[in-house]
Every structure is written in structure tokens, then in C-alpha cells.
């Protein structure tokens, strides 16, 4: 997620107020079907909505309102109906495995009464001025879009009913939408959506205030698992791309070819900032199929989303380009890289450990930590360490660009299509609306594809080839060597217990390079948002708390990784609670609940604590929700039961992306030090679960990825170079290493609660729960991630 950064490539909210009232009807008729489609004039805009606020001059914006280009609930933008009864629904968010193409469409289809089997999905091009915000990260899609999409669906349904009432000459109140048809209740006459399409297009859009939304008991798909679908749909897979994925038909970034296209791979600098000193391409050009070798400029630091530069080899096939690159002889100039060229992650850890001995920037202070220290009956002071990681989505980055006069086309997969569009427009000096960015499925994102650098590479190369289509293909080595890495983190913790074995003082000193270092020079401290991911919003009821931010510069490109700084922060905090519980001789769960204190809602707005962009009044920090997930996960796991030898249960809880997640891991450590994860019990509260099966899938995936973070996954650097080349060195969990069983429980699955994030909040508690379980099984405390061979004798 990237709420923390003012991204120079992305227009900020505030400039987002748009007026789309003059959408051309003809354009839609032409664009969607030759024979006519439901067209509804646009008249609902974020600007109009903002004007309804209490203070029209200075409305405080939260949630989707605060995002660039806000939200749109205009049915004309998302919904069209053809006379043949096909309902085409547009998904404008990026699909990277979270199932959003299904969920977005499901919400609109259900609310309008469309039959799932007559629904088609169309993927929107990058166009936030039309669709609202499309930047798919920060676990925001359903959180920000459930309400607008529901309204779009309800408006379309109302217009169909209005059209039917008019045709029959009956009062609107006598008409009701069934499944894909409108029924006149007294006479049981029916008109299909297709029959009503053209007439409905001419109907006025209902006023948002009078719009009648379906009651939840009328929903057929929303908040239901497949086995709970209506009879006609039982056993019907909901997944939009389900079978295409399994037959090889689904299209990812590298699955499209354009006429006359060249394939490019790029030899990028070994260190952040290195430049080409000289190169010899004779042998590369001699490789059959290689067409051209092009030197690319090295971006100055901080480089943002700019490509790293290097030498590109363009060929008639991917394999020829890869072979050509191997044949290049390049001498690098490490001068521009400065200290990055000697970056050593082991030495950097030692440096952070030294710095952690001194007080950092004090971010918050409650009570008197010095007094707590002096009066303490027992104390504990430890460091936790979490390494760099690469997102390593299974699909290495790829993008195709072609330029034709004052227009450019892009086919790729990115989390932030608008940033790709505007960035390409800027570098090619084209109007943004003349750059068409079409996205295929993303073969995983995890934050990596929030940066469209690879699209820019393809644009630069197409330009160098006079507009000829060029597909840039990253290899796995490129992905691991030249990524935007998860920050390394050193978390220094001090805890004090009073005579009653209660925690009287808590000091957390966090040192991690900031993602801001990608955009701003001298960004050597975590941003407020980064400190707000687990540290500043920690809800513990402790008399003295001091939270500090320590100096840590970035020597490689630091970027978003699923759950971001929550991962190291939760690892430290949730491990430390378990350590203090052990010190106090208390049960970890009881101790954790005691730390949470009485049920209460904490206002993050009061101290201006980062709240994922959400209204602190709607999304307070709710300790009762922490408690509920802890109680559920421990109950389901049988917390307190007697465990076999070398086996233990470990617990952790974390609140992130305005959702709450507690996990209990059941772990065995073999004689030889191998860790077997028998079971994970996950209690999750994101409020209402719009697509519950996909919520469960995200949490299962988080448990697997988190198991990797705990046990094996790390990026290291030496002499300014990343040391992991491919999956034999960059270890991610395989089927035999993942939890044997994962059980997910929905807590507070209730429409009265505002929706929370889903994709990310499951990940942070996994590693501490697993390491706490290792402690329970063996008595060995893991303070450095990953476990790797720490348990080997």
C-alpha cells in the first residue's frame, strides 16, 4: 500500500473532482454492441458528493473520497445490457489473485438482479477520470467500492423497472425485478432485461437518496459461499476466470503478441544507481534472432518508478534476447551508486544494532518510561530482526508498448494502471488520454506491480524503435536482483514488569529504511504511515509507552510488499508479548488479553495516527474486536490442551488495513530441527465478508506466505549485489513446507460494521504465531527471521 508516499507520478486527490455528465450516448452504443445498450447519463460525481458535505469549502476526505479520482457509482460507467440479454459489467480494479474481477461484478450483478450466467466481464482500461480510482493496493477494493458498486447496480435495476412500468402503463410500485427480468406483480407479466435495455437507457437515473437498495436477504451471491447459492446456482463456480485459468486461455501480461513485435530483455545495473561505463555487443548481435542492442539511461537517485537503465537486447524471440544478453560484455560504473555499491546486509544489520542502542526520534510518549524502568521488578530488552524480501510474484514482469503517431498502446499487468498511463504519456510526450493501457490478469502482485517501471522500459524501447511494438520480459533473476524490496527492519524492545507482574513500561525503537527513500533524498526515517502500521496504533493498556523511530537509510530500492511494515512490526510486538508473558510466568493468551485492557474504542484521529486513510470515527481501534478474534482462534485451536513432545501452540494478533486477525499455529520441531506446521487456526474480522470464499482463500494464502517469511524467505546483499539468483536461493514455501491444515473463521461478519481490508491483514500475525509456537515446542526463542537453520543442531 502506498498511502504514505506523495507519489510524483500520481495525481493526488483534490484534483480528482470530475464532471462526467456529458458522456456521449452514441459512443456507448457503438462501443459495446452494434444493436443498442442500456445507457444511463452520468450525473453522480465525487465533486457533487463532496459538495453535500457539512463544510463544502474544506470537506475532510477519507476512504475512497480521499483517493485520486475518488469513486464513481454511475451505472452508465459500469453496466450495459444488450438486447440479447447479455449484461456486460466492467471491472476497473486489478486482478492479482484476490478475486476482485469476480467480486466487483458479483456486487453489481446481485444488486441489479442479473443472472450470473448471462453476465460478461470487461476489464477497464486505465482511465480514473471515468472509473474512479484504480490503484489496486492497500487492501482497498471492496472497502472502497462495495457501496458505490451496489448503488450502480441498484440504479440500473430501478431504471429497468421504470422502463417496464412505462411500457405496461402501470405504477412503478407494481413492478419488481426478479432474476434477469422485471415482473408486473398483479398480472405476472414479465419483460427480460434484454427486452427492456433500450427503453431503460432513456430513463432518468434515480436520485441517490431515494435509491432502494436490496435488503441482504434478497442477495443471491453477496456474502454467500458457493454452497449457499440459490438452487439454480448450486455447484456453479462463481470464479470469473476460473476455467480459462485451467485451460491456459487466460491472458497475462506476456500472453499477447502484436504484429512485428520485438522481444526485449535488459541487463540492469548490479547496484542501485550504477551506470554503464562501457559495453561490447558484438557477440550479442551475432546471436541468431538478435535485432538490436540499446543502451538505456540510468535514473538519478532517488529514482521513484524510473527504470534502472542498463543494456537492452531486442530480438525476434524471448530466447534469442536472453541468449543475446548473456553474450554482452558490460563494464559498470559504480560511482553514481555511491555507498549502494558496497551495501552489505550483514554489516547493515550490525549498524542498525549499534544505532538501536541510542534513543531515536521519539514519535509518541505516554507516561514515564524512565520511572517504569527504575521501579521495575523484572525487565527484558531484546532486538528482533526481519530481512529484506522480494515479492516474487509467479509472473515475472512484462509489458508491451507500441507507438503510432500521437497515440500509444500498452498491454501489461500492473496494480496501478493510471500511473502506468500517465508515466508513459509523460515520457513519450503524449496526451494521457492518447495512451491506452489495457491490463491482463496479474500473475501475482504483492506490491511489486504497484511500480510500473517495466512499462516505462517498454515505452522507451518502442520509442527507440520508432514505435515498433516491444515486449519487455523480466526473468526471475531480474526480479530478484533488481526489485523494489521489502525493508529490512531492526526492532529494539524493552519491557518492564511491576511487582504484580503487570507490564508497567514498553519501549519500541524501530529502525527500517522507508519507502519514502524511493522518492525523496535523505529519507532516513520511517514515515508516519509506516510507523502507523502496528506501532503507533498498538492498543495495549500500559501506563508508560515510548515509541521511537531510528535512522535507517535505503541502499537498495525499497518498495511495497504485501502488508508492508506491519510484517516486522507485528513480528516484534507479538513475539515480545509472548516473551513478557513467559517472564511473568503467565499464560500467553491471558497475558495478551490483559494487555489489551477493558473493551474500548481508541480514536486514532486524536493523535493523528495513520488509519489507512479511513475516517477514525467510522474505523476506531476497537479492542473488543482484538479480543473477539483472539478468543475465537484460541478456542478453535484448543488453546491450553496438552501437546505431544516437541510440539506447541503459538498465538499472535494484529490489526492492519482496518481489519483484525488472530492466528494460532500448531507446530512441531523435529529432532533435526525441521519445522512442521500441522495446523493454523485463523480468526478474521474484516466486518462483512462480501465474497467469503475469497476471504478465506486470502487468509489461507497469507498463512502459506507467512510460513515462508517465518521459516525461509530472505534477500541478502553483499558488495552492493543481491545474493539470491533464483528459487534455489530465494526460498518460498512449497506444498510440503506449508501448513497441513488451515482453518479460517469469520468474526463480526456483519453489515453494521464498515468493511475492512482482506488481502494483507492476514499476513502480519503468521510469523510471530509460528515463532511463538516454536518456543512452546522447544523453548527456543526466534528473534531473527527467517528461522532458516537456527534450530538445526
Amino acid at each position: 500500500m502506498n498511502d504514505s508516499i506523495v507519489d510524483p507520478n500520481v495525481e493526488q486527490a483534490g484534483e480528482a473532482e470530475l464532471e462526467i455528465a456529458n458522456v456521449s450516448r452514441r459512443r456507448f452504443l457503438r462501443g459495446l454492441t452494434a444493436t443498442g445498450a442500456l445507457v444511463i447519463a452520468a450525473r453522480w460525481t465525487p465533486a457533487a458528493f463532496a459538495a453535500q458535505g457539512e463544510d463544502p469549502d474544506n470537506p475532510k476526505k477519507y476512504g475512497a473520497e480521499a483517493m485520486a479520482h475518488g469513486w464513481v457509482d454511475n451505472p452508465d460507467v459500469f453496466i450495459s445490457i444488450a438486447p440479447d440479454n447479455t449484461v456486460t459489467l466492467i471491472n476497473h480494479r486489478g486482478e492479482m489473485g484476490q478475486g476482485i474481477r469476480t467480486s466487483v461484478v458479483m456486487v453489481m450483478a446481485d444488486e441489479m438482479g442479473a443472472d450470473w450466467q448471462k453476465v460478461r466481464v470487461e476489464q477497464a482500461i486505465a482511465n480514473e477520470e471515468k472509473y474512479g480510482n484504480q490503484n489496486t493496493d492497500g487492501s482497498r477494493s471492496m472497502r472502497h467500492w462495495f457501496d458505490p458498486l451496489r448503488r450502480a447496480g441498484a440504479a440500473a435495476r430501478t431504471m429497468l423497472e421504470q422502463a417496464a412500468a412505462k411500457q405496461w402503463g402501470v405504477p412503478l410500485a407494481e413492478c419488481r425485478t426478479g432474476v434477469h427480468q422485471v415482473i408486473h406483480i398483479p398480472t405476472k407479466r414479465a419483460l427480460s432485461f434484454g427486452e427492456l435495455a433500450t427503453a431503460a437507457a432513456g430513463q432518468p437515473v434515480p436520485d441517490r437518496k431515494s435509491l432502494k437498495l436490496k435488503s441482504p436477504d434478497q442477495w443471491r451471491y453477496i456474502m454467500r459461499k458457493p454452497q449457499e447459492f440459490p438452487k439454480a446456482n448450486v455447484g456453479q463456480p462463481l470464479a470469473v476466470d476460473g476455467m480459462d485459468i485451467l485451460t491456459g486461455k487466460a491472458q497475462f501480461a506476456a500472453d499477447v503478441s502484436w504484429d512485428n513485435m520485438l522481444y526485449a530483455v535488459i541487463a540492469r545495473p548490479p547496484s542501485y544507481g550504477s551506470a554503464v561505463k562501457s559495453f561490447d555487443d558484438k557477440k550479442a548481435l551475432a546471436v541468431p534472432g538478435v535485432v538490436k542492442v540499446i543502451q538505456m539511461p540510468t535514473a538519478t537517485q532517488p529514482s521513484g518508478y524510473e527504470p534502472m537503465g542498463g543494456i537492452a537486447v531486442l530480438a525476434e524471440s524471448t530466447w534469442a534476447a536472453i541468449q543475446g544478453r548473456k553474450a554482452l560484455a558490460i563494464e559498470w560504473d559504480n560511482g553514481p551508486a555511491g555507498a549502494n555499491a558496497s551495501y552489505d546486509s550483514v554489516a547493515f544489520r550490525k549498524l542498525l544494532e549499534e544505532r538501536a542502542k541510542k534513543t531515536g526520534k521519539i514519535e509518541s510518549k505516554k507516561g514515564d518510561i524512565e520511572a517504569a524502568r527504575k521501579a521495575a521488578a523484572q525487565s527484558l530488552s531484546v532486538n528482533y530482526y526481519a530481512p529484506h524480501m522480494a515479492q516474487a510474484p509467479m509472473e515475472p514482469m512484462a509489458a508491451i508498448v507500441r507507438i503510432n503517431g500521437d497515440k500509444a498502446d500498452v498491454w501489461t499487468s500492473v496494480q496501478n494502471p493510471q500511473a502506468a498511463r500517465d508515466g508513459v504519456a509523460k515520457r513519450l510526450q503524449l496526451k494521457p488520454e492518447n495512451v491506452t493501457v489495457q491490463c491482463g490478469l496479474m500473475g501475482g502482485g504483492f506490491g511489486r506491480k504497484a511500480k510500473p517501471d517495466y512499462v516505462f522500459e517498454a515505452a522507451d524501447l518502442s520509442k527507440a524503435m520508432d514505435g515498433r511494438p516491444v515486449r519487455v520480459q523480466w526473468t526471475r533473476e531480474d526480479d530478484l536482483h533488481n526489485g523494489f524490496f521489502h525493508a529490512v527492519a531492526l526492532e529494539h524492545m524493552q519491557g518492564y514488569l511491576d511487582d504484580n507482574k503487570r507490564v508497567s513500561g514498553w519501549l519500541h525503537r524501530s529502525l527500517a529504511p522507508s519507502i519514502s527513500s524511493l522518492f525523496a533524498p535523505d529519507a532516513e526515517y520511517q514515515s508516519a504511515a509506516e510507523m502507523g502500521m502496528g506501532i503507533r496504533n498498538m492498543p495495549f493498556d500500559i501506563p508508560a509507552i515510548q515509541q521511537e523511530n531510528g535512522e535507517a537509510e535505503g541502499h537498495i530500492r525499497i518498495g511495497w510488499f504485501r502488508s508492508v511494515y506491519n510484517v516486522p512490526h507485528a513480528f516484534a510486538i507479538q513475539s515480545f508479548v509472548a516473551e513478557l508473558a513467559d517472564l511473568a510466568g503467565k499464560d500467553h493468551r491471558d497475558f495478551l488479553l490483559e494487555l489489551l485492557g477493558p473493551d474500548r474504542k481508541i480514536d486514532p484521529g486524536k493523535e493523528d495516527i495513520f488509519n489507512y486513510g479511513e475516517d477514525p470515527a467510522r474505523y476506531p481501534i476497537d479492542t473488543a474486536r482484538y479480543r473477539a478474534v483472539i478468543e475465537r482462534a484460541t478456542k478453535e485451536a484448543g488453546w491450553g490442551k496438552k501437546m505431544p513432545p516437541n510440539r506447541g501452540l503459538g498465538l499472535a494478533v494484529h490489526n492492519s488495513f482496518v481489519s483484525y486477525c488472530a492466528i494460532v499455529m500448531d507446530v512441531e520441531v523435529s529432532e533435526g530441527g525441521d519445522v512442521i506446521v500441522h495446523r493454523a487456526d485463523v480468526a478474521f474480522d474484516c466486518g462483512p465478508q462480501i465474497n467469503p470464499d475469497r476471504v478465506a482463500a486470502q487468509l489461507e494464502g497469507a498463512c502459506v506466505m507467512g510460513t515462508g517469511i517465518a521459516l525461509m524467505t530472505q534477500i541478502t546483499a553483499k558488495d552492493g549485489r543481491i545474493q539470491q539468483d533464483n528459487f534455489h536461493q530465494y526460498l518460498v514455501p512449497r506444498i510440503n513446507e506449508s501448513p497441513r491444515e488451515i482453518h479460517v473463521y469469520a468474526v463480526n461478519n456483519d453489515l453494521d460494521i464498515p468493511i475492512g481490508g482482506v488481502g494483507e491483514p492476514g499476513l502480519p500475525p503468521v510469523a510471530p504465531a509460528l515463532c511463538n509456537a516454536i518456543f512452546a515446542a522447544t523453548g527456543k526463542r526466534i528473534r531473527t527471521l527467517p528461522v532458516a537453520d537456527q534450530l538445526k543442531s
Partner: protein
Amino acid sequence: MIKLTINGEPRSLDVPADTPILWVLRDTLKLTGTRFGCGMALCGTCTVHLDGNPIRSCTTPISMAEGKHVTTIEAMEKDPLGRRVQQAWMDEAVAQCGYCQGGQVMSAVALLKNNPNPDDAQIDRQMSGNICRCGTYPRIRKAIHRAAAAAEKNAASIGEPLFTEVKA
């Protein structure tokens, strides 16, 4: 010229003999269902069958397939076992991003061909060469058991329409 059979079709290909099968499928034949993940036979995303046996196409040169049968994910719809595995994958809603799932299905079909009713340990052993970064492993395990059970129970249903879905 290299002569081989791909998904039942005889082909003569004029490509360098050392080109990995993966890139012949993807770039020359535009059979893009076989995907690139690592290029070092480490992740299994590119798995295809060579004379019925699973191989990593990213490191297997096309010359090794001379005179042999290459079968890709695109042919699984017509393969009774392939269809059963696909249906089990749908029923368990396995896929997340989907990028690795073609390779997972190819590995699972090869496993079930040799071992119609594998236990968890056998599944883990056979499937551990296929990485899924989304973490769909628990569902993959369930789907393989489901496909195995379906084979035992009702082999006759193969060939009937097994699913409906929304076309993207």
C-alpha cells in the same frame, strides 16, 4: 527442421535446436498457456508432458522432443483425466492469480496417471516442484483427492458438461 507432435498435431519446426520447449510453445506457436516462471526448472510453472511424463519445458531443449509427443495445458480439456482435474480445481476454487495453475494441473494429471489415489505424502512429493506464491497448496491437496475420488466413483460422467462459468 525438428519434427514432433504437439497436442496430437504433427509439427515441423524451424527453430534452433537448443531453444527450450517453453519458448517454442510461447513465441513460435503462441501456445501461451505454458508459462515462464524461473527458467531453471525450479518452480514448475512451465510443466508440460513429454510422451506422458511431466517435464520442465523451460530447461528442456526442443531437440529432446524430436519424434515425441508434447502435451500442454491447452490439451487437458480433451483429456478425460485432465477434465476431471480441472473440474476438481473448480470445485475447490483453487486458483488465485492463476499463473502457476496450468503447471500445477499438468503435474497433478501426471501424478494421478501413475497413482490414481495418492495420499498426502505422495501428493507433497510429486507436487513440491510446483511453486504457488499465492499459497493455494491446501486447496491443491484437496482438489487432487477430489479428482481421485471422482475417478473412482463415477468415471462415466466424463464428457458431460461439468461446469458453467462466466466468460471474461
